[in-house]
């Protein structure tokens, strides 16, 4: 298949989030951001909480993502995530409430408890959603 586009598919366990043709994808890999242009060599990476950016023409779009995987093939990128939200779908109020809840709990428990990491991760995700929504 010769084309200068990439087919980007994003799915979470609950739904298929996105299936579009794009020119470029920039994803937050666990070991740093990586960019994918058409014809990229096959590549499998873990994705961590952050924002995934894709470009269509000269339009940039943002997606808030959480932990997952990206499988890159020459003209296809499949991203499988625990959760993903497009920047215009994010419910900022809900994210804000989640942030406050996580902050409240973090203040109560000590860093040695095992819930601490979960709350940290929850806070991370909430902050990330707020950030992406405000772009």
């Amino acid at each position, binding site marked *: 298949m010769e084309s200068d586009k990439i087919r980007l598919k994003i799915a979470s*366990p*609950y739904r298929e989030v996105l299936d579009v043709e794009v020119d470029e994808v920039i994803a937050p890999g666990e070991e740093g951001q990586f960019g994918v242009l058409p014809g990229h060599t096959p590549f*499998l*990476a*873990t994705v961590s909480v952050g924002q995934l950016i894709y470009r269509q023409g000269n339009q940039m779009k943002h997606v808030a993502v959480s932990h997952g*995987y990206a499988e890159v093939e020459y003209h296809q990128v499949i991203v*499988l995530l625990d959760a993903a939200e497009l920047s215009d779908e994010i419910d900022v109020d809900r994210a804000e409430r989640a942030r406050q809840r996580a902050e409240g709990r973090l203040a109560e428990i000590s860093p040695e408890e095992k819930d601490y990491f979960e709350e940290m991760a929850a806070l991370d995700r909430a902050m990330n959603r707020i950030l992406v929504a405000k772009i």
Partner: protein
Amino acid sequence: MANLKDIRKRINSVKSTQQITKAMQMVAASKLKKAQDSVVQARPYAAKMSDVLASLAVRVKPGKHPLLERREEKKVELLVITSDRGLCGGFNTNVTKAADIFLKERGTEDESVLLSVVGRKARDYYRRRGWEFQTEELNPGSTSFSQAEAIARPVIDRYVEGEVDAVYVAYTDFQSAMTQTVQVKRLLPLEPKALAEDEFPVEYLYEPSEGALLADIIPRYISTQIFRMLLESIASEHGSRMTAMDSATNNATEMTAKLTLIYNRARQAAITTELMEIVSGAEALN
């Protein structure tokens, strides 16, 4: 001939049962819609996950991860997925029947089966038969990915530790509101995708390392599979309940019609006898 009052009572009771079955049918129909949507929504993720994993399994040597390892199946685990609630036709019995066949075939001398259950019906069924469970979970008619993960974790652990050599799942696959089929599928070890003759695996770049990625992705794949099976099972439960309740409602209608006929006949007979009595009484007076 049955007494008039008894028949009337019977008719009323059938009618109120019918109201209940009708209501249950409608509730099931609306829940089915929701469950069906979530199955459809979840399918792309599960399908893509399978693709990614299948292509991984071809590239990676079996020794790279404990979950890719194949052993002779001496001890197997069966996970049975049913619902918590009854009144859904043959839904639960179909699953337990399939599971029973599996248990009979595999539970021979040189092979033993461990059992795990999801759903109150399977739990009660096998508890009555004296089974002990590795894992038991309820199935309240809705599920989440975290529940699937909670089920997957001990299953994976047992496989990695070598307590079991294979894991099978008995569940109901949702095809449509009318048709659901019981399936017994192997969950572990994983099946690498068969390559066509002209295909050959392309090497991948991995980030972070191949080992770390596999360690992360394979358990997640198992959770995804279990999640999908739970969703399929829930949708099937509602579909099956809807059909069962529909036919129950129809049967009730039929029954009321029959009973009304009997009732009217009895009533007529009573009137006739009464008239006869009056007539003969009047004749006696003359």
